[in-house]
């Protein structure tokens, strides 16, 4: 196959970046499991992971750290993949589920489930998924008047975001104090209260949606050339757009249902991946892996920076993401001016 000069293939740099990210993920695992207030030696970690550890190590590693670590990877991967699809679909780096209203919509769905229906667990996930899809349908429906792409969708998303954010605040003011407290913590985006059941639901969702996203993402290669050319090359436009949008929204909602609206990972992961790999066709794996590392690293920092006080991870990704966005914009302005 490699004798073909023009066959589309991944660059060596792209493969090296994937390898690097994989190593980074392993490093983050090691740091998370062996560090902190309870710092077991590596062999104790290994023995515990194999199921032969002592009670204390089993409790902390298997019941507390491992589900949280896996959830951080899952949430980050889902957000990174979701952002990669949104950004290429809209051909705009600002088109991330954070900024275009799906995240706030998912939060509304989750809050309604949490506060009105008094349900948690799987129902909360469904609530977030429903809220996100509803916001997506609303925005896409409004944008359909002007075509689903580009700046108009983002402007509409911002407007719908503002509306739903007000709704979320209203829901919080109407809630009982302790419930509102819990919901507010969830709204920051936090991996504090994770259980195995929620982590497993998340991972099952990722296992289903990420391969689907990777398969559908190949259509982005045509979609991003513009509507007319994509169709002239034989792509069924509307089904492709809708399927991609649905998978991206489902991935974002899955992440949000698990950990609350963790900000900026979906925005930054694909952009970072693009700059690292210098590849025009990112696919899904690279941004998902980068999102996973970013979230797990942010969560590690959130736990350790001000220990024993735990910062909600969403605040950290928000701060990091905000700084990154300022850097990105200032660099692009310098280039264009």
């Amino acid at each position: 196959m490699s004798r073909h000069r023009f066959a589309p293939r991944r660059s060596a740099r792209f493969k090296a970046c994937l390898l690097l990210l994989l190593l980074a993920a392993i490093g983050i695992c090691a740091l998370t499991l062996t560090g902190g207030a309870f710092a077991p030696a590596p062999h104790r970690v290994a023995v515990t992971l194999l199921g032969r550890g002592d009670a204390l190590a089993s409790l902390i590693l298997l019941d507390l750290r491992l589900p949280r670590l896996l959830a951080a990877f899952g949430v980050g991967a889902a957000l990174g993949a979701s952002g990669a699809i949104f950004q290429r679909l809209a051909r705009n780096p600002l088109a991330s589920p954070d900024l275009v209203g799906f995240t706030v919509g998912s939060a509304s769905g989750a809050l309604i489930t949490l506060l009105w229906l008094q349900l948690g667990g799987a129902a909360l996930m469904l609530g977030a998924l429903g809220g996100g899809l509803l916001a997506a349908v609303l925005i896409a429906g409004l944008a359909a008047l002007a075509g689903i792409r580009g700046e108009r969708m983002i402007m509409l998303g911002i407007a719908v975001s503002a509306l739903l954010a007000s709704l979320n605040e209203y829901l919080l003011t109407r809630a009982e104090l302790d419930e509102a407290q819990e919901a507010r913590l969830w709204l920051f985006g936090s991996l504090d209260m994770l259980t195995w059941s929620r982590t497993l639901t998340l991972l099952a969702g990722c296992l289903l949606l990420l391969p689907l996203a990777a398969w559908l993402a190949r259509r982005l290669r045509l979609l991003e050339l513009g509507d007319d050319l994509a169709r002239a090359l034989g792509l069924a436009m509307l089904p492709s757009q809708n399927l991609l949008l649905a998978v991206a929204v489902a991935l974002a909602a899955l992440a949000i249902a698990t950990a609350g609206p963790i900000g900026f990972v979906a925005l930054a992961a694909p952009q970072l991946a693009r700059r690292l790999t210098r590849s025009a066709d990112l696919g899904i794996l690279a941004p998902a892996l980068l999102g996973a590392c970013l979230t797990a690293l942010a969560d590690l920092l959130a736990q350790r920076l001000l220990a024993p006080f735990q910062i909600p991870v969403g605040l950290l990704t928000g701060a990091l993401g905000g700084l990154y966005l300022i850097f990105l914009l200032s660099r692009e302005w310098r280039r264009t001016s």
Partner: protein
Amino acid sequence: MAADLMSQDASSSRLAAHGLTVGYGGQPICADLDVRLPDGRFTVIIGPNGCGKSTLLRSLARLIRPSAGEVRLDGRLIQDLPTREVARRIGLLPQSAVAPDDILVSDLVARGRHPHRQAFAGWTEADERAVQHALEATNTLELAERAVDSLSGGQRQRVWIALALAQETPLLLLDEPTTFLDIAHQVELMELLCRLNREGGRTLVAVLHDLNQACRYADHIIALRAGRILAEGPPAEIVTPELIEALYGLKCAVIENPLAGTPLVIPY
């Protein structure tokens, strides 16, 4: 059937529209058009801004569903053909094509192979040859490993044409391919299109703004005004001061181009 498709006398046309009416809601942009695109020829559509040139081109490529009338490709209603099948027969280079950031020339051109590639099959010998030919024909082979962002306007336009060529369609529609190019690159591109038509036997259809280029390179001109055909035929037969005035409201003289012998439009 196969013999029918191969025949290339001027009267045959694989792509034709009958009673074509297209509108984006309410006011029709093209009204009751009958268009036949002669096989193996270079057809140019001219007309003032907003006359429906692009709309006609897009309907012929099945990008817009007509509100009345029909488009037929090889005798069959074009909307009855599978999307991929249409994409193997008609290539379209729209004005709106966007090159993704950082993409390499060869990667962009390879995307033109999409209608020929099977879902889980790899890159085939046919894909490789098609891309090679497309790059050679457009004189972009030496740019293959360059980023599209780094190219000049003329080079970039040739790369887009290479993408359409890699699609290996017998019919190729181009929407204002010379826009934004300087005069030298315009001529270069027109010569390229002419060569593709003469040597490759492709049926070419282009929307052009430059009347004199249209007259010089086209075998067949379709003159559109307000969604209707005012005249069609070989440039030497139809391009007259009366037609130009009726099309554009512009008074002009039409003389013979001393180099090519084709009509030359000179506005007063």
